[in-house]
């Protein structure tokens, strides 16, 4: 008991994020992410319904695309796995928050319709790729195989510019 938590906490803090101090709650979530990984072949968010198709669920692979926004607005992610330093330092109460996924997916669909997703700037030598998990930007011919900051896979990148 505790090793799973300690390893995850160390790994997470290396990427600039923080983990809830509720060891039992966190370990249960980590075990359930593992259950999803075995079930679907990818680490789907344990608190959202996965489809079984990775390409349809890219936004909800843990860490999900909504982590930053939830940390910004509430101080913790939907599952209450990741928290902000402010929540840790000030011992703020962690609670259940609304799931922004459905609204975000609808907004994304709308944006695609209006083709307003991507900014175009002429004369750039390389396209710019953005990691949807941590916001890392890379100007290079292709997105990197693995995000050098938060270590998620290439398919979590989007063409940004």
């Amino acid at each position, binding site marked *: 008991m505790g090793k799973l938590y300690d390893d995850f906490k160390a790994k997470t803090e290396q990427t600039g994020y923080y983990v809830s101090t509720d060891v039992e709650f966190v370990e249960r979530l980590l075990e*359930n992410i593992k259950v*999803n990984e075995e079930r679907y072949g990818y680490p789907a968010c344990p608190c*959202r*319904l996965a489809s079984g198709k990775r390409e349809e669920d890219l936004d909800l692979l843990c860490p999900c695309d909504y982590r930053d926004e939830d940390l910004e607005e509430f101080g913790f992610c939907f599952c209450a796995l990741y928290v902000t330093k402010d929540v840790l330092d000030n011992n703020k109460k962690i*609670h259940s928050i*609304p799931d922004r996924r*459905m609204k975000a997916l609808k907004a994304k669909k709308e944006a695609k319709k209006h083709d307003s997703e991507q900014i175009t700037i002429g004369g750039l030598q390389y396209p710019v790729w953005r990691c949807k998990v941590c916001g890392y930007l890379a100007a290079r011919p292709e997105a990197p195989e693995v995000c050098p900051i938060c270590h998620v896979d290439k398919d979590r990148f989007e063409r940004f510019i």
Partner: protein
Amino acid sequence: MDTVTVNGVEYRHVDGEDKGTILLYGLSTCGWCKETRMYLELNEVAYNYIYVDLTSGDARDAAMEELEKYNPDMSFPTLIINEDTVILGYEPEKMAELLDLPEE
């Protein structure tokens, strides 16, 4: 295990004190869903639950269609009391109030 079918969705029934028809939409892997179940069981409330991640095909479609009626965000956990009152997420204070249970 007892099952109950409401509007074409099959739930597992957990015995306890009758506080109305309580339907819980959850996932077997979700932390707040487990907290919600633990809260209901600690307070010995009768309820029905479905773990949507353990369903597939038509059963899943029926469950999600039903859930969407009460919660367009289709998030988990969603608790439905008497087919009209909805609690989104793990909300012990709201459950205490709506189910007339002692505060924690």
